[in-house]
């Protein structure tokens, strides 16, 4: 009898072990919930990137479901997600750029080279808006509803998979809610 039990030992050890692996999987170290989710986009008064004479405010982000994309020329990952943003813009999605701690001339040149998917870009030279938003780093993307409320936030590259899995349904929902009243 005891012999038979010994034969079950590997199975038992494994059954004890497997949940640990599962738990480890559950803890996604990259996930960063936002303190801003469900709150209004913070107030700011900053110049526009291309036209320095224009001043932008939080009101400019309202009235339409909007993506706010934090980017900078020093951020390598931003170059990776840029084609995706261009694609989204051609599909009629409103994207606002937040140029974060950057050099104005370099940023303008960067957009000229890679295409400009942004309706307009906020120039946050000293990162003050970034601090209010709680930006960890670039790139980050915020999904705002028509009232300027942050509905979702994503740290890291926005590629096709991220869009499909995490943004697409939220975006559509918000747009539909807006249309229905």
């Amino acid at each position, binding site marked *: 009898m005891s*012999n*038979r039990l010994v*034969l*079950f030992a*590997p*199975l038992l050890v*494994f*059954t004890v072990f*497997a949940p*640990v*692996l*599962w*738990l*480890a*999987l*559950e*803890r*996604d*170290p*990259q996930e960063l919930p936002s303190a801003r989710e469900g709150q209004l986009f913070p107030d700011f008064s900053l110049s526009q990137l291309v036209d320095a004479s224009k001043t932008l405010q939080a009101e400019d982000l309202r009235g339409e479901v909007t993506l706010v994309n934090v980017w900078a020329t020093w951020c*390598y990952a931003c170059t*990776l997600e840029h*084609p995706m943003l*261009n*694609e989204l813009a051609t599909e009629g999605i409103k994207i606002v750029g937040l140029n974060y701690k950057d050099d104005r001339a370099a940023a303008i040149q960067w957009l000229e080279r890679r295409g400009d998917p942004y309706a307009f870009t906020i120039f946050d030279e000293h990162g003050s808006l970034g601090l209010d938003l709680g930006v960890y780093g670039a790139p980050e993307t915020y999904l705002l509803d028509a009232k300027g409320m942050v509905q979702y936030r994503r740290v890291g590259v926005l590629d*096709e998979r991220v869009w499909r899995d995490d943004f697409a349904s939220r975006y559509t929902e918000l747009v539909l809610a807006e249309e229905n009243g």
Partner: protein
Amino acid sequence: MSPEFGHVALIVGLCLAVIQSAVPMCGTYFGAPRWMHMGRSLALGHAVFVMLAFISLTAAFLTDDFSVRYVAQHSNSLLPTQYKVSAVWSAHEGSLLLWSLVLALWSAAVAVFSKTLPLVFVARVLSVLGMIAVGFGLFILLTSNPFERTLPFPPMDGSDLNPLLQDIGLILHPPFLYMGYVGLSVPFAFAIAALLGQQFDSAWARWCRPWINIAWVFLTVGITLGSWWAYYELGWGGWWFWDPVENASLMPWLTATALVHSVAATEKRGVFRSWTLLLAIFAFSLSLLGTFLVRSGVLTSVHAFASDPERGEFILLFLCLVIGSSFLLFALRGPAIRSRTGFSGVSRETLLLVNNLILITSTAMILLGTLYPLIADALDWGKISVGPPYFNFFFVPLSLLLLASLGVSVSSRWRHTDPSGLRQKIKLPLIASILLGVLLPVPMASWYDNSGYAPSAAVTLIFTFWVLGASLHDALIKTASGNLMKLPASYWGMLCAHCGIAICALGVGLSTIYGVQRDIRMDLGDSIILAGYRFEFRDIRQFNQPNYVATQAEFAVYVGGVLERTLSPEKRHYHAGGEVMTEAGIDAGLTRDLYVSLGEPLGSSSWSVRVQVKPFVRCIWLGGLLVALGGILATADKRYRRRRSPKQLFTGSSGRASYEK
């Protein structure tokens, strides 16, 4: 060949695998030989279609088809052709496809080379392999399709292959490693087939052995190549880091090494039957676990692929299914396994048992060390990393123990060895190795500017000479009686592999103990003297390459005022991704490597520089290759090529399982 064609081929391949996993297995239950025969052609068909899929992905790389997302992410039109090919398996999706291809090729090999085995047995083996192929096929198609397009806006050019991977090491390392990893699925399938058919005799072990050996040889070469690649390509002279991903490959290797030995005992003496079966299951389970750790991103590692919980869940599910069901099967069928014949305390069996214990203990301790951070994190004990000291603390003494038993084992016999005869045989090598080992570090202390006598070097040398001495001594005794040619290839294989282990240990020990390393700041014209070599920083210049700018330094190495060698370490800045690479300047030699790498510029003409002299570091990889060569020799033994007519097998004792149902 368009990527869509590859995608379709992959789907067809998966369908064939589904049939392959079901039909022959059902055939064994219904006693339908025609169904069982289908296994072979299905396995071949599956291999053909996976091969087509692989070729079409390779074609997409060669033709710079950047509409395929995977190609766009990992290639570039400027990439040299050979790296376009190796880029196919440089990241997750493609390497999984390579994995599937390797599995398909192994199944096809089993289908082709199993003509002499009982039909029922082959049918079961191929079905099990088919099931594994279904798992991986689904994994690729559902979570990591390499053929995905980014239409309608394909990028103009790809974002280039990571420069670390633009190297001959990457062309060779993964295919070899995968041949080993996946090759372990064959003994696994054999074990499951044995459990299903309740056939655990020596014949089973004999069928299994060549497959185990070949898979193990590939794994050995794969790990050796990986270590060598890390040494020269990462630029800082380390060859093993106890990184989770390295551990993921070492654990199946240790288990497979145990399996290679225990299956020998099962074949020759009919002992350790259930243990051998269990080891076959363990080895493949560990290679699956390794896949899980690497692909799911649960561990922090320099090698880890981009993390993706979805993929992790799939592999974990597959892992649980495979391991859980095989352990259950083992528990249910285990009682039928009876090991024959006992053996005395002093015998080859006992020594193999010791060897297995040591190897499995090492595996368990590496497994614990690798998973401890996971466990701690899951249980909220804090964020922990387990460093090399833990692994070294256990691995070094266990390896020494292994070496000690290795020397005795060569001279031992099956069943019973006369203790006094054995003592007589090992006396000479024992004394010689202790003498040499104790005395050699005396002059060595002055060769390498190491202060004083190094006892650890003495220990290394004693154990290494012990294994080498005992092996050579035994070979001399055996050949002295004049029947040199009569000694089977497997004997020479064993000798070669054992000496390889000893030489590898010698390299590890001496390069660690006598290796000197200095990080210093050097101005143009400065010199540093290390282990009797004078390194002079002579020149620094820049030059342009199509895809990077290199800063190349020139170091002249003098021994006693005579110019010995010029080394040219580089710092490369790649245009595409902005990566910086350190290319070390290495002068390789059997007894020592000179290794210079550039750190960073500290002003106009001064640099931080790492200068190293590494005695006998080449022995590490030389030993690895000898081990692999030993495996090849053992597999080439005439014994496995002896043709037996299928009829004989059906009627013989080994055919017991054939038509029992």
